[in-house]
């Protein structure tokens, strides 16, 4: 482990494919410039195309040749760079976790991609990435990091014992059932995502295609009739929906949660296997989400709020601890995974006088919009009243869903804007607390509470609106570390 090591040669192939993917659109454009399928060959674009291909290929290989990693003096040392040689030394104590994932290239050779996560790598991806190394090497690496963290004095010669690696295979604490994955896929908003993806694809293709040549065809198409266009649109929608369901199935198949030493490990995926490691002492709190489609079915999701790690960026899905679960089962499952969080608590609710405020807060904008919309788009604009009524109903729901609970060192806040969210957090994880009220609310003794949790590189806020002022004071007193002042 101490002499510089190379990645598996398959990395060169992966680099090549990645390079191809990045250069896809210029290449497609060149292809059409090249005469497309017309058979005539123009030499200049062809030369340019082959030069680019060659460059990507050689670049991929050289990048693999130049990339070395080693463990030395308590640091993970990586040296790389195609033109400019770069060295990146990461102190082991700063490494928070190693995440493993396997793509289609990795599977046949027992390889994994390793992402090294540090506290600072919140914004721009993982601190370092080993594109492909043997599973066994990856496990050794992980073991060495764990050992070093326990006792930094271990000298460099010590070998990792086999027995320890064998021991750390643990049984899953939670597994997703197939039925749940299917139901989740059906009720997911993923269809929208795929649709926009299809849209982007078409717009890109349209940009790349020589429009003049196919313009006539498009005109013919339109003449066939709007009916076919509409049919196609629906078909595209349906296909997008099916694709999103299949993607979700692939992504969440074999979903498992385990605890290994002091880490929570989430693995999932069928073709591409993903593993996320979350050190338990970095967990800042839990969030239970119930959206308006899944709530009537009695399902919710549980997300971990964790401090640090590149896993946070963009894809919060990776921190879904229980992506889709019957609400009634959450408590029992969490008891096995993180027993110091109490899920089933009695919620206290905001006072009756807060109800009109909840309704006004959710719907005033819609009611104001109704007037001009109804006038300008009469009579169809009157339908906007329905939207405003919906917002009013949401305000009503928001009042009934709001709640708080204080049990020992745990604060639970529940609120709804559209999504119903329950935050469960420990006193010593709350970064700061806010009591907010307007002068008008002060008169009738209502007030908001908001608390901040660390989440990745930034923060997340849990809140509950229009509680009685003395309730909020009580919560602030609970959070107040200085006991002298509470008695005042």
């Amino acid at each position, binding site marked *: 482990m101490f002499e510089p090591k190379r990645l598996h040669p398959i990395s060169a192939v992966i680099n090549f494919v990645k390079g191809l993917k990045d250069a896809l659109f210029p290449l497609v454009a060149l292809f059409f410039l090249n005469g497309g399928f017309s058979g005539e060959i123009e030499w200049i674009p062809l030369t340019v195309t082959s030069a680019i291909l060659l460059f990507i290929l050689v670049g991929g290989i050289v990048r693999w040749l130049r990339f070395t990693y080693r463990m030395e003096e308590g640091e993970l040392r990586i040296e790389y760079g195609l033109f400019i040689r770069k060295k990146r030394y990461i102190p082991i104590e700063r490494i928070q976790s190693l995440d493993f994932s396997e793509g289609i290239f990795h599977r046949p050779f027992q390889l994994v991609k390793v992402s090294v996560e540090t506290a600072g790598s919140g914004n721009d991806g993982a601190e370092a990435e080993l594109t492909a190394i043997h599973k066994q090497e990856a496990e050794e690496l992980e073991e060495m990091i764990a050992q070093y963290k326990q006792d930094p004095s271990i000298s460099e010669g010590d070998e990792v014992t086999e027995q320890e690696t064998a021991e750390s295979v643990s049984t899953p604490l939670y597994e997703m059932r197939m039925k749940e994955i299917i139901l989740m896929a059906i009720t997911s908003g993923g269809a929208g995502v795929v649709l926009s993806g299809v849209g982007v694809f078409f717009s890109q293709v349209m940009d790349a295609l020589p429009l003049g040549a196919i313009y006539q065809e498009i005109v013919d198409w339109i003449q066939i009739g709007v009916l076919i266009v509409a049919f196609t649109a629906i078909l595209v929608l349906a296909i997008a929906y099916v694709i999103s369901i299949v993607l979700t199935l692939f992504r969440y198949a074999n979903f498992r949660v385990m605890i290994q030493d002091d880490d929570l490990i989430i693995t999932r995926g069928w073709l591409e296997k993903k593993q996320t490691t979350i050190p338990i002492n970095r967990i800042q709190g839990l969030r239970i989400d119930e959206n308006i489609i899944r709530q009537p079915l009695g399902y919710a999701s549980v997300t971990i709020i964790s401090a640090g790690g590149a896993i946070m960026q963009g894809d919060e899905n990776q921190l879904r601890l229980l992506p889709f679960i019957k609400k009634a089962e959450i408590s029992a499952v969490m008891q096995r995974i993180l027993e110091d969080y109490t899920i089933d608590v009695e919620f206290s609710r905001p006072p009756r006088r807060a109800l009109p405020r909840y309704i006004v807060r959710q719907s005033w904008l819609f009611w104001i919009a109704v007037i001009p919309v109804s006038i300008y788009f009469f009579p169809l604009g009157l339908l906007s009243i329905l939207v405003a009524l919906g917002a009013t109903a949401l305000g009503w729901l928001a009042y009934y869903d709001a709640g708080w609970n204080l049990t020992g060192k745990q604060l639970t806040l529940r609120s709804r804007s559209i999504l119903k969210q329950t935050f469960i957090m420990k006193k*010593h994880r709350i970064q*700061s*607390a806010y009591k907010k009220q307007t*002068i008008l609310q002060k008169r009738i003794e209502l007030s908001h509470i908001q608390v901040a949790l660390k*989440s990745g590189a930034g923060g997340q806020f849990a809140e509950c609106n229009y509680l009685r*002022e003395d309730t909020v*004071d009580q919560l*602030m007193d609970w959070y107040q*570390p200085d006991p002298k002042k509470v008695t005042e």
Partner: protein
Amino acid sequence: MNYEPARQISRRALRLWRISGLIQFGITLIISIGLLVAILIWDWPSFILWIAAGVLILELVGMVWLFPSLKWRSWRYEVTEQDIELQQGIFWITKTLVPMVRVQHVDTEQGPLLRKFRLSTISISTAATVHKIPALDEREAEELRRSISSLARVAEDDV
């Protein structure tokens, strides 16, 4: 926790905010004069001038006279060994509580105008949030920064 934090920010902040209000007023004034010229030369509709006049008066009354004193009166803070409390807002009143153990670092900053008035803004960062106290006396801010950072160091805790 139904009480006000004890300390107020520097009285000089009042004059500072009035002056920066005046500067804004000045900018709007220049724009209004530009508009007046445009109306005279290109025959722009004259109601624009009425709007500009309205904005000018609002700015003079609001930004220069009313707002600074309300803001100054509403700002309160208190720092003890255990926590930092801030209270601010004229219509929306927000009270913030930051335990000392959660403080990650403290910065003071000072623009040219603040330097002129020997004032400085202090910002207190936790792992998730940043809290600012505007326009403290320079020396007081310096002292506060030192005491907060030493208190925060004593109260070490994992994130």
